């Protein structure tokens, strides 16, 4: 293995606007981060093989070499531990966890080590590790390869959680995650890789800032990941009925941007949560609870929350489709909220 000092100098990352797929947006963020900072590296299973399992890493090994695009054995807990050791001694590892369902196989690293390491040391060090993880259903991958699990990790002080709902968000959130001196768990949705959108090369997302992706006065829909585009589709259908939905892409679960959500709900008085995971202990429950504690008055009829049944994801295609919130279900929930007395 060679040493980092031999790597290429930081590339020009101009403020160009380009249309990219979500996959390529991630690729661009990785590329720009690797070019900018010689201490950044990407590691995980098959990350350097054939562009990685989801092809997000295409071209990187050719450019940065097999040391900075580092294939690991199959041992998630072990190699996140390795990343932790690297991060406290001068490097900025990005770890790819192929499916979010595998995050629990590294449960100790993710729950007990990364978030608590700086704290337990009394602030002596920082832990600049980004864990990229590929989340979500729609792939017919069955019960053990379809979780988002995004909310499990927002309970952990010390761990930032980012959720990318579009190509633009994917790029800028990932750049921010990699630059962060704290551990960030970054969720990509496998159902979005082919989607196109505008990416501003070089842009960093603001930590903890949600984005209003559509304005509207009648009902607020809060969404993450795949549910962002489904909420936008719902909003379109609702507009045909004369209902103007405001759609918020939450972008971060920790920190959670309650001010943005609150302002919107205070305006619309109605809330729909579009989330691809069971309701109990989810971010949707947290958002609603925060508003309630904050004395925001809003309609919260049961239909106003579009939540999957409390069931694991099935392989069977019609079942997988039925369990996820569809644009129709989100729109119905919004209609319910609007018509509630």
């Amino acid at each position, binding site marked *: 293995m060679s040493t980092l000092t031999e790597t290429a100098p930081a590339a020009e990352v101009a403020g160009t606007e380009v249309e990219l797929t979500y996959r390529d947006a991630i690729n661009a963020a990785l590329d720009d981060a690797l070019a900018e900072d010689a201490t950044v590296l990407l590691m995980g299973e098959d990350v350097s093989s054939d562009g990685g399992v989801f092809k997000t890493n295409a071209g990187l090994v050719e450019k940065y070499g097999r040391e900075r695009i580092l294939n690991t*054995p199959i041992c998630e807990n072990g190699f996140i531990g390795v990343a932790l050791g690297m991060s406290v001694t001068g490097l900025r590892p990005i770890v790819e966890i192929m499916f979010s369902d595998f995050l629990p196989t590294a449960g100790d690293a993710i729950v007990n080590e990364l978030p608590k390491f700086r704290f337990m040391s009394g602030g002596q060090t920082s832990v600049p590790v980004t864990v990229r993880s590929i989340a979500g259903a729609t792939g017919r991958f069955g019960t053990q390869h379809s979780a988002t699990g995004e909310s499990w990790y927002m309970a952990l002080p010390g761990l930032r959680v980012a959720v990318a709902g579009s190509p633009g968000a994917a790029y800028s959130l990932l750049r921010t995650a990699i630059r962060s001196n704290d551990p960030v768990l970054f969720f990509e949705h496998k159902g979005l890789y082919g989607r196109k959108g505008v990416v501003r090369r070089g842009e960093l997302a603001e930590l903890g800032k949600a984005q209003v992706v559509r304005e509207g006065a009648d009902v607020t829909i809060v969404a993450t990941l795949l549910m962002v585009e489904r909420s936008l589709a719902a909003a379109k259908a609702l507009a045909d009925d004369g209902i103007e939905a405001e759609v918020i892409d939450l972008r971060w679960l920790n920190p959670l941007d309650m001010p943005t959500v609150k302002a919107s709900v205070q305006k619309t008085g109605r809330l729909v949560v579009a989330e691809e995971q069971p309701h109990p202990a989810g971010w949707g429950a947290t958002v609603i609870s925060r508003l309630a504690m904050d004395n925001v008055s809003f309609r919260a009829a049961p239909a106003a929350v579009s939540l999957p049944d409390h069931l694991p994801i099935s392989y069977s295609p019609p079942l997988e489709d039925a369990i996820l919130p569809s644009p129709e279900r989100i729109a119905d929930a919004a209609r319910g909220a609007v018509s509630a007395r």
Partner: protein
Amino acid sequence: MKDGQGEGATDRRVGWLRKMIEIRLFEEKVQELFMKGLIQGTTHLAQGQEGVSVGAIAAMREDDVLTMTYRGHGQALARGMDSEAAFAELMGRASGCCGGVGGSMHFTDFSKGLIGAFAIVGAGLPVAVGAAMSARMQGKDSVALTFFGDGSTNIGTFHESLNMASIWKAPVIFIIENNLYGEYTPLRETTPHEDLAIRAQPFQMPGIVVDGQDVGVVHDTVAEAIERARRGDGPSLLEMKTYRFRGHSRSDPAKYRPEGELDRWKARDPITILGARLAEESVLSEDDQKAAWDDIQSQIDAAADRAAEAPFPTLEETHRYVYAD
């Protein structure tokens, strides 16, 4: 006729050949149905590895059990899972072995001792250790087998399982299907040695390298390990040298293979090897073998057709799969 069952009986190896052909053709059909969209998601075919499933499982007794991985079609069929139920599962139908909810990665059939197929690398190993312990604690002399890949020997659960099996002398056989790759990554990049059988060393159990392409050798080695476990002498680790003829999963063109590697392994096709031997020994002529392929092909086709007629499950129906109480 060393693998035969004695004078007058049909040579067991004819059954093994037929079973390997069934698995091969089943998986060909899977590929075809995938193209048609009748099967979705992903599949991990084990074509080229049939000798391991068929040989090992032939050595099992009816009350023995096994766990396996997402690459488990071969084991399921070898253990007698009905191919219609298997196709139906792949098509997500209510009549599938798991009611259509499991899919390709979770072929399970308790009535056949197929007690679990795991999509998480390494997860099936401790479950087999538990089943083995359970049998012994209940005064039975049945054993458990667990199949997993070369790449799975790098995850902690492998180590934990071998250690527990060893200290408790659990009647369990660990079977590595070493097909030289974990997804796209060759073994030598993730493991410091070629023969994984040496991973048995610190656990005081036999570690044996086996030619996985020779179903007879597989059978005999596994039979011996099972005997050992059954009489209370503890676990074994068997490394089957084998190869998958296709990519890791549906989306993998397997471009990472060095030139010629696939051809070399195709020359060691377990079906060809056994077929040639049976012809040579005049147990089953080439014509008879040809007839067998045709016969099995039409059974497979018919099973797939019947499976495609079954209804999909409803979400309601799956609610009762969540809790037993």
